[in-house]
């Protein structure tokens, strides 16, 4: 549209307000002012409402997670008087014989000792029902405890053994006693026994150290997040080692060396697009390339880390390019003007100055990778692993995958553990992000 004021003055209508006196004009503007103020107030209110809603949802989320998960910090234990048979397990000096210990039926010992406290329980079914109050792993854990001590105790001694997850849930008030017996995990006679033990002081709630020192288990009371944390840590180490140098080199090349043209544009567009690719696609890529083509081990943090590195790569490249661009060109000119080669300019001046930004981008990328589940599922890091991984090729799982596995389990006790694991994950994420902020604050240079 070509509007020309000069040639259309015949068509112009004189605005009465424009030609009126200042007082008339002011009165007109003042009259409209109320409406304008109301509009800006409304907009402000919408903004506050949006933020309040977001904070509200966040509060609900955190409250739910914490109220569901905090009880997993404690574990119910039952006192059992056990007389360890020294003649069957030890040598003459009273030291434990590990071979004999390995072959010994510790479960039987614990169950027998526990039942002795209830001589009135005789029926086969009832005895089994009574035994269910104790953790299925109680024997194994007692064995570890005594083997660690090295010497066998003489005579009966009271030990605290873990209760089963159902008793644990009952003690934490997560099982409703008023429900019909058929529908209840803890039966009436079991309830009576639990109350009897509790009344006699044979029940206690202790800090759940197992949760932080063990890997996954079929029994909730023996399951912990350490395996998943170590798995995540190993994978993330690989991610940093692979992604950081690759991304920084790619960014430096794209910023300083890439000849402008179609190929460079194509690469640039695709780097940006890669950041938006669904992570499960990277998982498929890892499955096809790393496992299928290169035949790398399944479920290994090495492969998981490499897949996550592919996913993090665009994030770090974009962050690095942005922070390289934030370094004033005068610094680059100064170095080049002295006769520094482009590589010397980049390594001696640009990268050190861009380092805080690169580091921040990397930490944020890594934090993103830490929370990622989908690509790990594709390469088999979703397995049930009971050992804490000790190397990059050991089968392992990761923290978010562990949460996913537990949240899918039937036992009520796994539910609270998955909430606690979410808290652990959130603490890691928040501390990583805080580190990023702190680094940026500390090393940010002003020109």
């Amino acid at each position, binding site marked *: 549209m070509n509007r020309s004021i000069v040639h259309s003055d015949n068509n112009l209508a004189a605005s009465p307000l424009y030609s009126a006196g200042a007082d008339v004009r002011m009165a007109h503007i003042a009259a409209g002012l109320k409406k304008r103020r109301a509009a800006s107030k409304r907009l402000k209110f919408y903004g506050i409402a949006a933020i309040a809603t977001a904070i509200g949802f966040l509060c609900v989320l955190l409250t739910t997670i914490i109220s569901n998960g905090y009880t997993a910090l404690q574990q119910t234990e039952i006192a059992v008087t056990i007389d360890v048979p020294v003649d069957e397990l030890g040598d003459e000096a009273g030291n434990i014989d590990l071979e004999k210990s390995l072959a010994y039926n510790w479960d039987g010992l614990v169950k027998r000792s526990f039942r002795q406290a209830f001589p009135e329980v005789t029926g086969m079914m009832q005895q089994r029902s009574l035994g269910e109050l104790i953790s299925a792993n109680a024997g194994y854990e007692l064995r570890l405890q005594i083997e660690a001590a090295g010497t066998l105790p003489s005579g009966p001694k009271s030990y605290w053994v873990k209760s089963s997850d159902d008793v644990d849930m009952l003690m934490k008030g997560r099982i409703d006693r008023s429900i019909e017996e058929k529908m209840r995990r803890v039966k009436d006679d079991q309830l009576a026994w639990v109350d009897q033990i509790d009344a006699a002081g044979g029940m206690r709630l202790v800090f759940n150290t197992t949760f932080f020192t063990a890997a996954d288990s079929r029994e909730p009371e023996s399951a912990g997040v350490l395996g998943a944390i170590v798995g995540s840590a190993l994978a993330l180490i690989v991610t940093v080692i692979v992604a950081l140098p690759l991304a920084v080199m790619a960014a430096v090349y794209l910023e300083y060396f890439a*000849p*402008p043209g179609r190929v460079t544009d194509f690469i640039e567009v695709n780097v940006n697009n890669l950041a938006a690719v669904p992570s499960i696609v990277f998982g498929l890529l890892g499955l096809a390339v790393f496992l299928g083509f290169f035949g790398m081990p399944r479920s290994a943090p090495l492969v998981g880390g490499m897949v996550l590195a592919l996913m993090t790569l665009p994030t770090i490249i974009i962050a690095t390019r942005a922070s390289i661009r934030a370094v*004033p060109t*005068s*610094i*680059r*000119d*100064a*170095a*080049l*003007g*002295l*006769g*520094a*080669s482009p590589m*010397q300019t980049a390594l*001696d*001046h640009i990268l050190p*100055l861009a380092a805080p930004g690169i580091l921040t981008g990397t930490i944020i990328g890594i934090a993103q990778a830490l929370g990622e589940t989908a690509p790990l599922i594709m390469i088999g890091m979703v397995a049930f692993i009971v050992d804490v991984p000790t190397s990059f090729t050991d089968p392992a799982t990761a923290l978010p995958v562990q949460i996913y596995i537990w949240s899918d389990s039937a036992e009520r006790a796994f539910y609270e553990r998955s909430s606690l694991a979410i808290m652990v994950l959130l603490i890691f994420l928040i501390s990583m992000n805080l580190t990023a902020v702190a680094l940026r604050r500390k090393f940010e*240079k002003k*020109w």
Partner: protein
Amino acid sequence: MVIAMNATTDLMPDIKLHAADVSVFYGEKQALFDVSLDIQERSVTSFIGPSGCGKSTFLRCFNRMNDVIPSCRVHGKIIMDNVNLNSQEIDPVLLRARVGMVFQKPNPFPKTVYENVAYGPRIHGLAASRQELDFIVEDSLKKAGLWKEVADRLNDQATGLSGGQQQRLCIARAIAVGPDILLMDEPCSALDPIATTIIEELISNLQSRFTILIVTHSMQQAARVSQKTAYFHLGKLIEYGDTKDIFTRPQNAKTEAYISGKIG
């Protein structure tokens, strides 16, 4: 050509640089048109002209800083010691060790004063020991007239110096590599009058050792520091000659209009 006539032939042995038909293009746009001139050794030559006239672009041809700009192409020859600096066989890294540059805004590295001066000699391997490097740093700072002020703060951050000190540090940094030629791109435009005076005095002192090319917006500055002046307008070299002639008896009407403040 006007230029060839202006450059008197008896000065030929002292000619340090010879530019022949230098044209510069930014993409499709031509920024400099067939500029030819001779630069005298151990003298100060100033390039003046209104903004966007191509004087800075021309200056950057002498140390190939235009190479950094991807769309920029430079045609023509710049001869120094019988070598065409604009040829692809010349390594800009080597060239820049002989042709130092000082920029418009003081741009010290955000490192210590010492590190700023030592960086150039270090990357070119000019000092075999710490003592040699110390000597180069001290000597360069002395030549730049900064030694007395920073002798006891060599390990302080260079960005903590005043603007004028920073610019002299940048000059010291350029000198430390041992160049023959110093390019100065409006070195005083970001400085206050006192700092400007100090830099101008420094330029006059440096003239005995270096061939200095200076781009300036201030005609007074050109008149004060330079022996030769070139006036550029819209990418063309309009007039080139002895500074005193340019400012007192300009041959070209455009030059006269500019120095009398009618354009620019």
